[in-house]
C-alpha cells in the first residue's frame, strides 16, 4: 500500500502552523479573558463553558494564557532564528568569502562555542545578563548561530568557485553586487531548511527556559512557565499541564512536518530521499 504521506504531512503542518499563528493573534488582540487578571472566585475551576481550559490557582483563564503563550513562543522562536541567522549568516559569509586568517579565526571561535553542548551556553550567558524574554532571545540566538556559521560558510565556499560567479566577476560587476545578486540567492533554499529546523529547536528551548524560570517572566504567560506553575497542582488540576503541553506539541508538530517537506523540496543534498 502506497500512501501520499508527504503531501498529507504538508497539509497538516500548514494547518497546525496556521492554528498557532491565529492563536497568537487572538491572544494578543482579542483574548477571551485577561490572561493576567487574578480572580479568586474562580480558583482552580475545571474546564467549563466560561473557561474552556479551566482556571489556574490565581483564577486566571488558562485558555487565554495558552493563546498569549503562543504569541510569546512565536516571538521568541522567530527572534532567536533572526539573531542566529543575522550573526551566523554574516560571520559565515565573511569566513567563506574572504578565507585565509579571517576564516581560521571564525572557525576556531565556532569550534570553541560548539564545545558547550545544548542549552549550556545559553544558560551561562543568562547567568551573566539575567533572565527575561530579550536575554533569552539573544542567548539562544548566539548559541544557535554556530550552525549557521558553518552552513553559510560552506555554501559560500562552494559557490565562490562556480562558473556563474566567475562570469559575474569577469563582466566587471563589483564584489558586493556579485554577493547579493549571485551568491546569496543560491544560499536561500538551504538556509530556509536550516531555519525551519532551528525554529523547532527554538520553540523547544524557549519552553524549556521558561519552564526553568529563566525565559518569559511571571506573570506573563508562556507554555513552559505554565507547565512549571501547574506542576505542583496537576494531581487536582490536570488541565494546568495538559493544555499548555498540547500547545507546545501541536506547534512543534506543525513546524517539524513543514520542515520535513521543505527539506524534501529544497535541499539539494537530500535529493531523491523520501
Amino acid at each position, binding site marked *: *500500500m*502506497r*500512501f501520499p*504521506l508527504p503531501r498529507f*504531512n504538508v497539509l497538516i503542518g500548514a494547518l497546525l502552523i496556521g492554528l498557532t499563528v491565529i492563536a497568537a493573534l487572538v491572544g494578543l488582540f482579542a483574548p477571551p479573558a485577561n490572561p493576567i487578571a487574578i480572580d479568586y472566585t474562580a480558583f482552580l475551576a475545571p474546564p467549563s463553558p466560561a473557561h474552556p481550559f479551566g482556571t489556574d490557582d490565581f483564577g486566571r483563564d488558562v485558555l487565554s494564557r495558552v493563546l498569549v503563550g503562543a504569541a510569546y513562543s512565536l516571538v521568541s522562536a522567530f527572534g532567536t532564528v533572526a539573531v542566529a541567522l543575522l550573526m551566523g549568516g554574516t560571520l559565515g559569509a565573511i569566513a567563506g568569502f574572504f578565507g585565509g586568517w579571517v576564516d581560521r579565526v571564525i572557525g*576556531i571561535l565556532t*569550534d*570553541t*562555542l560548539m*564545545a*558547550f*553542548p*545544548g*542549552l*549550556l*551556553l545559553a*544558560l*551561562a550567558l*543568562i*547567568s*551573566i545578563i539575567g533572565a527575561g524574554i530579550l536575554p533569552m532571545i539573544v542567548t539562544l540566538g548566539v548559541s544557535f548561530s554556530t550552525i549557521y556559521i558553518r552552513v553559510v560558510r560552506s555554501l559560500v565556499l562552494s559557490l565562490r568557485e562556480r562558473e556563474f560567479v566567475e562570469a559575474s566577476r569577469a563582466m566587471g560587476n563589483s564584489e558586493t553586487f556579485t554577493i547579493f545578486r549571485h551568491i546569496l540567492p543560491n544560499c536561500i533554499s538551504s538556509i530556509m531548511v536550516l531555519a525551519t529546523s532551528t525554529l*523547532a529547536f527554538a520553540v*523547544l528551548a524557549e*519552553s*524549556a527556559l521558561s*519552564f*526553568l*524560570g*529563566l525565559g518569559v517572566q511571571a506573570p506573563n504567560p508562556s507554555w513552559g512557565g505554565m*507547565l512549571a506553575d501547574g*506542576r505542583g497542582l*496537576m*494531581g487536582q488540576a*490536570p488541565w494546568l*499541564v*495538559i493544555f499548555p*503541553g498540547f500547545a*507546545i*506539541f501541536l506547534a*512543534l*508538530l506543525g*513546524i*517539524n*512536518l513543514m520542515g*520535513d517537506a521543505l527539506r524534501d523540496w529544497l535541499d539539494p543534498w537530500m535529493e531523491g*530521499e*523520501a
Partner: protein
Amino acid sequence: MFRYTIFRVLAAFPTLLLVTILVFLFIRLVPGDPAAVLVGDIQNIGRLEEIRARLGLDRSVPEQFVIWLGNILQGDFGVSILNGAPVLDTILSRFAVTAQVIFVAVTVSTLIAIPAGMIAAWKQNRWADNLIVVTTIAAMSVPSFWIGLTLILIFGIELGWLPSVGYVSPLEDFSRGVMYLIMPVTALVMGEIGGVLRMARASTIEVMRREYITHARSKGLSEGVVLARHAFPNAFAPTLTILGMIIGSLLGGAAVIETVFTLPGLGRLTIDAISSRDYPMVQGILLVVAVIYVVVNLITDLLYPIFDPRVKL
C-alpha cells in the same frame, strides 16, 4: 589507525585550551570585581584579600590565566559561594547521577531506534515505514519535560505505581533505584529517540541503494543476512555521530528533566548555581561539561573508523 588516533587526540588539545580561555574570561564578563564575584560577599574583606592573592588578581590577565589554569590542573576549582564546598567535588558527585540517567537513556534509545530505523528503510514507503516516520516526527515534537509531567500524572499520581520524584542510587539499593529511574529515562528516551531514528533510517536508505547490497541479494542471501551483515555496519557509522551529539544535548538539557523529577544531578546544580549567582560553581560546570563533551566527540570520532574503514588519515 594508529596515526588517526594520535592525530585526533592531539587535535582536541587546541579546542580544550580555547574552552578553558573562554571559561576563564566568563567570570570577567560578570560586572564587578572578579574577587567580589567569586566570594559573593563584599563585606568579607579577609576572603576577598585571600582570593585576590590566590588568583594573582594584581598581576596581568595572561598571568592570572596561567595561575588559574595551574589551579584547575591540580583539581582546585575554588569553593562554592553558597556552602563553601569544593566546586569539583560537588560537580563530580552530581555528575554521577546525570551520567547514569544519560547512559541508560542513550542505550535504550539506540537499541530501539536503530532496528526501527533499519526496518523503516527496508520497507521504505510501506505502511511500517509510514508508521515509523510519523512516530519519529511526533517524538521530535514532544518536549521531554512534558512527557515527564504526564508520566508523573499517570503512573505516579493516578496509578501510584512509581515514585513521582526523588532519587535513590541504584548502587546502594538496586531495585528501589531502578524504580526512581524508570520515568526520567522514559521521558528522555521519548524526547531524544526521534533524532536517532531519523538518522538510522536515512543512512540505511542511503546504504540500501548501493551495488554491494544488490550484489549480496543476487548471491541469494536472505534479507536478514543482507541487513545484518551488509547494511547495518555501513549505516551505523553516521548514526554514531548523532549519538555523540545527543549525549551533548542531554548534558546541556538535563536541567529540565532533573527539575521535573527533582533528581540531584548536574543540570539541577546548574540551575541552582545560576539562580543563586554561585559563579565559581557555574564556571566549574561550564568547564567540566565542555571537557566531557569534547572527550565524547573524540571517542565517537575514534570509534568511527572501526565501523567505516574508509575513514583514514
